[in-house]
């Protein structure tokens, strides 16, 4: 139930963040032009700091301030209010207890508290758009000293301003995530059904387990930093405010003695593990769907598990590769470059194992499988384009350019969001008892795939030409320098709008199928092996009708000698001759 609450809220925020981006992309392709049709309404809703009228008095031109606010909030919303609630909290709360054979999460009341604290953070973040001065506009990274001085002075409320509300909202969001993380770890450790050993866990559960650890240990320093930045704004402290800061031509009214770099350290200590939080649940979902739709076990299960454990561990000690431009010396830069390159190894192991899992399978291109298969090359592009950024010397040039934006969007947009779509199509029948329409699924998938590449591939070209990531006019001011690549703006923006249209079949499919989708003939419409498919569709209170016992591993598809091409984890051994998997000497399919 909580999974569904998180899911709906998260999906709505993903959609909202997407809309913000669409407005930004209009501006990038057509700087200074009012947003067509809805421009007047946007100005009425978001206020005059975000939108203004052009020379002819037509309202709805996104201002630089508005662009910055939309950009900062797009990032914040997509990461903390879209992907984490959907991929981690929603899918996790719904699928993980089912997959381990548990009746519920370990601490149901804390789970409920976690959702409502998250909900409060959502309300605060949304409210921040409508206070005088608009939403936070200092980047999703909220670097001091800008974030310490922004939204202050005449025209802003001393406390209820966008930048301060962003911090308050983040504190609530982080608290909710921490409560959730405790629940996930405790559940996976304590509530596995009898027979569900660690190495029989579906890979998705492993990814959720590591993700929960990342959230548990990496979020608190950012919560501390958020409180400190809040103190800087509300109580005039100088945690991050340096001495001698000049704002608007005058010495700023802080005592000084603080360190802006301290903020960056505390922020990125979380934000780097956070990117693995964004990708791991998706990788887990893709793994489940690939195994199911190739009718064969995953290749290299042990390697996959080892890889994500190493990945989780290393993710804590790579963070300063986001800070190469802060004047760090050779020793510390060398350290972080080394750990960053090493962390690419487990990522490669994961994607290679998943790709090899396709080999020799009898592939069914169901809608989830379409998205899961596409995930592989898309995540590959995202990951490979990250490697140049790991090097200090290359990052000197590429830092804060569109190259970086292209890199991380490939990982999260055709990466995690595709994984989320795959997961929605895959587990929809379990949650509702009905199937989504495959036809609409195809109609959703193909244009989305093409358009996502249309948006994000040219970003590499723009980035390498030097286009900065936060130019509100798409680089029009610097057109002389970036002439060869500026035309890509229109191409990317058109792709973005077409991408928006491609989501309509999904929205229709989702909403319509809840009520009128084809009813499932049994609880296991995909003929899957993992335990969640034993539960009723949808599962009732306590998830399962009978206690669960697990007898075998998670991916026993096409076991030689079995009477069907899948053997559920809960199916007892037929006889002593076939106790668990294939008999000795018989290779896996």
């Amino acid at each position: 139930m909580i999974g569904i609450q998180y899911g709906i809220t998260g999906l709505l925020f993903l959609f909202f963040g997407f809309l913000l981006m669409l407005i930004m992309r209009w501006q990038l392709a057509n700087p200074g032009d009012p947003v067509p049709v809805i421009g007047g309404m946007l100005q009425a809703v978001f206020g005059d700091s975000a939108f203004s009228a052009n020379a002819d008095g037509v309202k709805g031109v996104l201002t630089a301030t508005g662009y910055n606010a939309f950009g900062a909030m797009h990032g914040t919303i997509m990461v903390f209010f879209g992907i984490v609630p959907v991929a981690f909290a929603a899918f996790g709360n719904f699928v993980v207890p089912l997959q381990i054979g548990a009746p519920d999460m370990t601490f149901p009341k804390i789970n409920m508290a976690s959702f409502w604290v998250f909900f409060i953070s959502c309300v605060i973040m949304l409210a921040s758009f409508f206070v005088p001065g608009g939403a936070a506009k200092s980047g999703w990274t909220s670097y001091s000293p800008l974030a310490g001085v922004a939204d202050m002075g005449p025209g802003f409320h001393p406390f209820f301003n966008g930048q301060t509300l962003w911090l308050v909202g983040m504190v609530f969001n982080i608290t909710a995530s921490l409560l959730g993380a405790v629940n996930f770890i405790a559940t996976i450790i304590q509530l596995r059904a009898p027979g569900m050993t660690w190495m029989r866990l579906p890979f998705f559960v492993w990814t959720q387990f590591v993700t929960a650890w990342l959230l548990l240990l990496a979020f608190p320093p950012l919560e501390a930093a958020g409180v400190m930045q809040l103190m800087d704004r509300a109580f005039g402290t100088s945690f991050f405010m340096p001495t001698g800061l000049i704002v608007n031509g005058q010495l700023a009214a802080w005592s000084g003695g603080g360190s802006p770099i301290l903020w960056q350290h505390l922020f990125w200590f979380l934000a780097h593990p956070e990117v693995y939080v964004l990708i791991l649940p998706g990788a887990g979902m893709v793994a489940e769907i690939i195994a199911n739709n190739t009718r064969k076990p995953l290749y290299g299960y042990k390697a996959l598990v080892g890889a994500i454990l190493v990945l989780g561990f290393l993710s804590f000690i790579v963070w300063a590769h986001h800070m190469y431009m802060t004047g760090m010396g050779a020793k510390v830069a060398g350290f972080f470059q080394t750990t960053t390159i090493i962390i690419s190894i487990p990522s490669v192991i994961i994607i290679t194992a998943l790709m090899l899992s396709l080999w020799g399978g009898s592939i069914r291109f169901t809608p989830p499988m379409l998205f899961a298969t596409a995930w592989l090359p898309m995540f590959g592009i995202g990951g490979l384009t990250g490697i140049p950024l790991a090097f200090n010397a290359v990052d000197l040039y590429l830092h804060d350019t569109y190259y970086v934006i292209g890199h991380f969007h490939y990982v999260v947009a055709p990466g995690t969001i595709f994984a989320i779509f795959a997961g929605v199509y895959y587990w929809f029948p379990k949650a509702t008892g009905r199937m989504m329409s495959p036809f609409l699924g195809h109609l959703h998938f193909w244009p989305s795939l093409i358009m996502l590449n249309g948006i994000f591939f040219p970003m590499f070209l723009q980035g390498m030409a030097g286009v900065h990531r936060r130019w509100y006019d798409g680089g029009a001011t610097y057109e002389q320098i970036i002439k060869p690549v500026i035309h890509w703006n229109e191409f990317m923006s058109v792709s973005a709008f077409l991408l928006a249209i491609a989501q309509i079949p999904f929205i229709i499919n989702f909403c319509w199928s809840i009520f009128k989708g084809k009813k499932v003939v049994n609880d296991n419409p995909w003929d899957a092996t993992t335990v969640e498919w034993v539960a009723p569709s949808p599962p009732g209170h306590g998830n399962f009708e009978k206690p669960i016992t697990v007898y075998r591993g998670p991916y026993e598809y096409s076991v030689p000698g079995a009477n069907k091409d899948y053997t559920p984890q809960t199916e007892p051994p037929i006889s002593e001759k076939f106790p668990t998997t294939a008999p000795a000497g018989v290779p896996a399919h």
Partner: protein
Amino acid sequence: MSEHHPAVTAETPNAPHDHDHAHDVSKHVKGYLIVGALLLVFTFITVALAYVDFGSHTANVVVAMIVATFKAGLVAAIFMHLKGEKRLIWQFLFFTVFFAIGLFFLTWLHWIDPIFGTHHTHH
């Protein structure tokens, strides 16, 4: 010594513990009081040591941290029952402490290794 428990059946997964655990606990009570007294004594030692100059500021810090760590260790081991706690909890703490030290160490490393000049912040 212990009161009569309410009747429980073998099927109840949440049945209370056996009586002998109560015996174990009573043995520890004296230990708790001794540790409590030790902690109070070492608090006064901490303050007294602050009046002694150990040569450099760094040395003073190290001495104070050693005493604090010893006190914290007593609280953790005895009051929080870490001594004799299950392996899993120790594993959690190992990773936590490792990453906490990582945060301190790497931040400090960045501090001492700038490209030029220092990170000093005041005029």
